[in-house]
């Protein structure tokens, strides 16, 4: 029960933050992306404190993990900057600019019950499901061939 309440509360903090910041409005995103025109840094005002707070809590979580007072952190192990990351981010930017929305604001708008958000979130969920099929294209032929054998030590 305690865990359920914690998880819900974490989500609620995110939802309250997104909407009270008003970054759910597409013009905030279009303004951010208009670097060579009427550039509007409002989005940075949202991201700076969010990243700063998260950074402090990340350090705290790492200390708690080390002294075995907190959960083991489940963090992405990949460190490589590869074609999959760059292509994915580029494609993400296309959708971001076309709609003026991204997963956070779209889900927050869905919570507020506006019709466009249902269409966007449905397409986004389909995209998240399809993403793994597109991801196969980025597997190197050697990685595919090596699969049946024992894992290499490199």
């Amino acid at each position, binding site marked *: 029960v305690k865990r359920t309440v914690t998880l819900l509360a974490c989500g609620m903090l995110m939802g*309250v933050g997104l909407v009270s910041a008003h970054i759910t409005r597409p013009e905030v995103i279009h303004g951010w*992306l208009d670097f060579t025109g009427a550039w509007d840094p409002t989005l940075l005002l949202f991201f700076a404190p969010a990243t700063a*707070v998260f950074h402090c809590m990340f350090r705290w979580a790492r200390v708690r993990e080390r002294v075995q007072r907190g959960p083991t952190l489940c963090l992405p192990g990949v460190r490589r900057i590869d074609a*999959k*990351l*760059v292509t994915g981010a580029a494609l993400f*930017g296309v*959708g971001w600019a076309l709609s003026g929305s991204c997963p956070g604001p779209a889900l927050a708008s869905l919570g507020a019950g506006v019709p466009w958000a249902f269409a966007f979130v449905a397409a986004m969920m389909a995209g998240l499901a399809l993403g793994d099929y597109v991801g196969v294209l980025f597997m190197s032929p050697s990685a595919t061939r090596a699969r049946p054998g024992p894992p290499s030590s490199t």
Partner: protein
Amino acid sequence: MSSWWLVGLGGGLFGLGGGCLLVTQGRLGGISGLAGGLVHERGAERAWRALVLLGLLVGAAATSQVFPEAIAREGMPSLPRLVGAGLCVGIGARLANGCTSGHGICGVGRLSSRSCIAVIVFSLSGWLVQKVVSP
């Protein structure tokens, strides 16, 4: 446009929510990661993500009663464009393993070089698209 302190406060609250998730559960709360988990995970792994997203929907719904002008109600792109954009966002976030919140807040907050690259790339590609297709 809303006042700057409200934007900053909202950012702080969002970071706090993500931070609490990491401190208490050891999990990262990028939105596309949570939403992607609904599709790709099963059982308990899916359930905790659903709870966070449910909290987000409820929190957003409640706050939109206080700030009704924060939600875009009209003037959004046509349905085909919205669906196309949603597909790009979904596929892109899955390939890049994160979205604006996952890379921009959790990733940059962990000083991950992958996330910094992702933020630069999606901001640049968004800028280019906006040069060609007006919002």
